[in-house]
């Protein structure tokens, strides 16, 4: 079987700064992987590098999506190939309507797959359903992309996009931070509704709380640009109780 996402010895950084320093991660279809780790460890960077953000340079290693070389693709090609990144801080784009934005996104994937584009009417129906599912009022479809949305509303908007885009691998970067208790449940339900044997998730979080709702198959600790420990759901509980101290992380020194 081909791995859904396979990352081997990934070294990457920005300008002169190395951030990822030999990261390995293998994800099979249907699996949920949680990534935890201290601030500044490189979790968001991993998402940016996988998605192909400008300015992030890969200096060593490889990453494949369904056997295809991910690092060789354009940003939009990676999306169409099934990679979805839910941002830690989604950007506001006034003037581009959320609805038009999502319709163009979904249709881009459909065109790439040789399917008919959705008409405005067809898409409106789907969008309304997704909007209800993440419990955003319908007028959020008409507003500018994330324009004036609260922190929690932006996160729900990310999940709405995920539901509409039907990606094969979803990288959720701290989608739980900034959410109230009810919103956390809504977002988790949204994610769980999308779980399937063909779809995998990488859930970046600082809190065990989210993992009560979204049960991970694996938990990884990312520190100083590497996965330094992997385990099952109990690892998250241990971190919640003990912090990262038991891994000796307080003593990590910057290597030259």
């Amino acid at each position, binding site marked *: 079987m081909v791995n859904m996402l396979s990352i081997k010895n990934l070294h990457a950084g920005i300008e002169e700064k190395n951030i990822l320093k030999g990261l390995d991660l293998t994800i099979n279809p249907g699996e949920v992987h949680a990534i935890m780790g201290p601030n500044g460890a490189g979790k968001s960077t991993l998402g940016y590098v996988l998605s192909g953000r400008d300015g992030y340079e890969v200096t060593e290693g490889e990453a494949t999506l369904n056997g295809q070389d991910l690092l060789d693709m354009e940003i939009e090609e990676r999306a169409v190939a099934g990679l979805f990144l839910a941002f830690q801080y989604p950007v506001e784009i006034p003037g581009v309507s959320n609805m038009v934005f999502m319709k163009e996104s979904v249709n*881009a994937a459909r065109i790439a797959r040789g399917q008919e584009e959705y008409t405005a009417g067809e898409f409106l129906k789907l969008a309304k359903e997704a909007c209800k599912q993440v419990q955003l009022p319908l007028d959020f479809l008409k507003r500018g992309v994330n324009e004036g949305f609260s922190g929690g509303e932006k996160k729900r908007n990310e999940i709405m996009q995920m539901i509409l885009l039907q990606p094969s691998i979803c990288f959720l970067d701290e989608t739980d931070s900034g959410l109230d208790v009810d919103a956390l449940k809504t977002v988790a339900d949204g994610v769980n509704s999308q779980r399937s044997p063909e779809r995998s998730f990488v859930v970046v979080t600082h809190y065990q709380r989210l993992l009560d709702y979204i049960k991970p198959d694996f938990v990884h600790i990312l520190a100083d640009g590497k996965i330094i420990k992997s385990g099952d759901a109990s690892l998250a509980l241990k971190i919640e109780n003990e912090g990262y101290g038991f891994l000796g992380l307080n003593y990590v020194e910057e290597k030259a």
Partner: protein
Amino acid sequence: MSQWLEDVIAHAEQPASNELAATWLAEQRNSSLKKLKEQKWPTRRTEAWANTSLVSVESRNAKPTPANITSWDKPAIPGLDSIDIYFVGGQLKTDLSTFTLPEGLSIYTLQDEKAEAVAASRFAQIKPERHIFGLINDAIANSGVVIDVAENAIIDTPIRLIHLANDGVENHSRVLVNVAKHAKVTIIEHGVGEEDSVNTSMSEFDVADNATLYHYRFALFTQKALHVGGCHFQVGASSYINSTIVAFGSDLSKLNIDVNYTGEHSNVDINAMYLLAEGEAFDLQSTIEHAVPNGTSNEKVHGIIGDRARANFGGRIHIHRDAQKTLAQLNNRNLLLSRRALINTKPELEIYADDVRCAHGATIAEIDDESLYYLLTRGIPRSQALIMLNFGFIQELINDIEIDPIRAWLTDMLSTRFKSMEVS
């Protein structure tokens, strides 16, 4: 001196051109004609015309006598239910007597003696005298309407004044709108033309205390349709004006906007957008006179300039000595699509009061990398993402429009124009 201006003055001096006019209008015309004769034809050394050349108009022969045009296009705004009044080739083409107007609304022709009560004290008095084309329009405009909205009248149906320029003709049309206390009205000035023509359409608005005016001016003149127009507002106390300007550019297209506050606690929002293609030029000059305290103004001007097009913007905010607690904002943002595209922008703040809050600025926009990245991560092709972001800049202002059919029509029309600019 300009051949065209000489012809215009000669025409205005003919007894015939005044015989047709109502008494009140004849008096105003004579007064403006006198002032016009004292003015010098502007050159590039005239400050108001430093960046806009009058070459295309100055040496031509004027045709101030209205042309009798019998067929014309009717620019539709789908789904909009409006009272439509046509001005074609300098003639009023709509028979006002066929309208059954809502209560509180009266519309007179410029020649109507009955308009005197409303017009005599306002015509050519709201518009500042410094605009030479304003004086020209005063002196020779034959087609026009006076719109009177009575106290407390809330007029739901917009009134649309359509100015059309056909081949070779001149269109000097005139609008005067009186919005009495506590009244509300929507006026749409819709100018269209691409064929060789000269258009001066001037409008004056007197918005009384507690009144509301929604105003639209579409200056869709392109190619050879020369246009110098004006929208001039006088604002009473506790009133509100919302004005949306949309412009294309032609060999010569210029619009002057003037707002003069006469009463306190009034609020004026102006959203202006221009989309200039090929070698088009457009010049927008706005002057906001905060003459009394406690006024608020917010002016947003967004432009997209492609190819070899040129935009000129001047935004003056003048806060008089007594105008304490004024809140004035002015922002001009421009997006240049090519190296040869040009913008001259000059926001001007003149403040004589000490307790005011003002913000003004002009920027040349670039695509925000983070926004582009976000769209790409959703699979949207780069070329399309760029169109969405660039047009988003204009869409932002379109979204503020209150009337759904106008919003939809503009989104459609402007995005089509924008896409054609991208490829050229």
